[in-house]
């Protein structure tokens, strides 16, 4: 009977739960789904990570290649993120060129990398004007159950922490690059941006970590990306019902707690990994 009511009146069904301050899957309004992360998952990539937020699964693989630095910034390398939402993850995505959701998420990840300065592009330069690293970060969603932005940001951060770059020296006589396959070094990660997403219900209620159903029923979504110093890298609110300053304040405090949880989880995983 409940299943019938849910099909006919999904919003009313949700409201019954929200009145009791909980959600159909048993979570509180401010509770995240179980987060699991697996670092170093792909052996052929230079860095990789798999993140599961409840059912939402995102995998990130980072490959490092050579390129000539841009002419207007000869001492900088490149970081190129790309988010792919294949038809595998959800029935709403079709095969073919990237749809709107994939493009918007790619742009969001590119903005987070740019704003938070997670990696200094100067660290990626090998020889100014001649050779630099380009990090291709490919994020693929394997299962779409809402909150793709949080999962992608976490996967990207975890994969970047796993990336090991080979040592490259330029031979002065031949002007060719020589790669030392034995010596690898980790990237210098400046800040740790962590995203927290909320769904706005009925103009007043804020639900943390929305599932795909909740995102569909919600009046709007809000994503806050914060680093460990409490600075905001991104406040992404693509439309939806209005919010006042007090509600934003609540979101900020929740984002601060989430940042601590995520950082602790990542440190535990990295510590437990055997050294390569």
């Amino acid at each position, binding site marked *: 009977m409940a299943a019938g009511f849910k099909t006919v009146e999904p919003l009313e069904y949700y409201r019954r739960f929200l009145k009791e301050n909980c959600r159909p899957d048993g979570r509180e309004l401010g509770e995240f789904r179980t987060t699991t992360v697996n670092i170093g998952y792909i052996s052929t990539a230079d860095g990789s990570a798999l993140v599961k937020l409840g059912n939402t699964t995102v995998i990130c693989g980072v490959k490092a290649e050579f390129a000539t630095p841009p002419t207007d910034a000869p001492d900088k390398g490149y970081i190129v993120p790309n988010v792919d939402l294949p038809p595998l993850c959800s029935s709403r995505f079709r095969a073919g060129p990237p749809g709107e959701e994939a493009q918007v998420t*790619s742009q969001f990840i590119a903005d987070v990398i740019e704003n938070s300065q997670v990696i200094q592009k100067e660290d990626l330069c090998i020889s100014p004007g001649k050779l630099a690293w380009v990090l291709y970060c490919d994020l693929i969603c394997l299962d779409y159950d809402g909150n793709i932005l949080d999962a992608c940001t976490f996967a990207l951060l975890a994969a970047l922490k796993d990336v090991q770059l080979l040592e490259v020296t330029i031979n002065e006589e031949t002007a060719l690059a020589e790669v030392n396959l034995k010596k690898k070094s980790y990237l210098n990660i400046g800040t740790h941006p962590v995203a927290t997403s909320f769904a706005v219900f009925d103009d007043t209620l804020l639900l943390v970590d929305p599932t795909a159903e909740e995102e569909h029923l919600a*009046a709007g979504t809000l994503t806050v990306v914060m680093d460990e110093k409490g*600075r905001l890298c991104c406040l*992404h609110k693509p*439309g939806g*019902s*209005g919010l*006042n300053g007090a509600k934003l304040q609540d979101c900020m405090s929740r984002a601060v707690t989430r940042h601590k949880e995520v950082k602790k989880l990542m440190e535990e995983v990295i510590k437990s990994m055997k050294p390569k």
Partner: protein
Amino acid sequence: MEVDEPSSRPPGCSLRHFACEQNLLSRPDGSSSFLQGDTSVLAGVYGPAEVKVSKEIFNKATLEVILRPKTGLPGVPEKSRERLIRSTCEAVVLGALHPRTSITVVLQVVSDAGSLLACCLNAACMALVDAGVPMRALFCGVTCALDSDGTLVLDPTTKQEKEARAVLTFALDSVEQKLLMSTTKGLYSDAELQQCLAAAQAAAQHVFRFFRESLQRRYSKS
């Protein structure tokens, strides 16, 4: 064709001079051209019109936004901005009054001298009003730039945006100045965000007063 400009610069407000022209194109149901300093955006609205069966929603109108940059083909950043403008319009347009129809907003960037997204939002709002699309409130776009020592600049030029530490763009509604849309670039603190939001809400009052005056002038003549 109506050209409307504010009669006097609002005192104590650092917004650039703005101007708006409505009903300048003959084919779209509504059109407007919005100027903010040297930034200019042309908007056209078609709707409510027929919608493709694959895109139709049974109980409300399907909103579509197309943003064309000044030069080159539209790319991923344009798609991201289209999503922001579309979601803002969806929050205010009363789509339930026109189910199974489509409302298309086409924006063309004529010149970009800073605060482009805010100008696009203002042009889109004026074009929707010109087309007679039912809305629950008007909305406006305001951009704030924070430079390295924390000074706030409203409605920055391209040069100010490049030198700023953070650039925040907000869309606010006309009823209670609530935050409808927000997109930011750069690093800033929570307190600075609240400060920018308060300044944007104050600036929005001026923009809405300009909207009201220009519409009053237009309808009092005809």
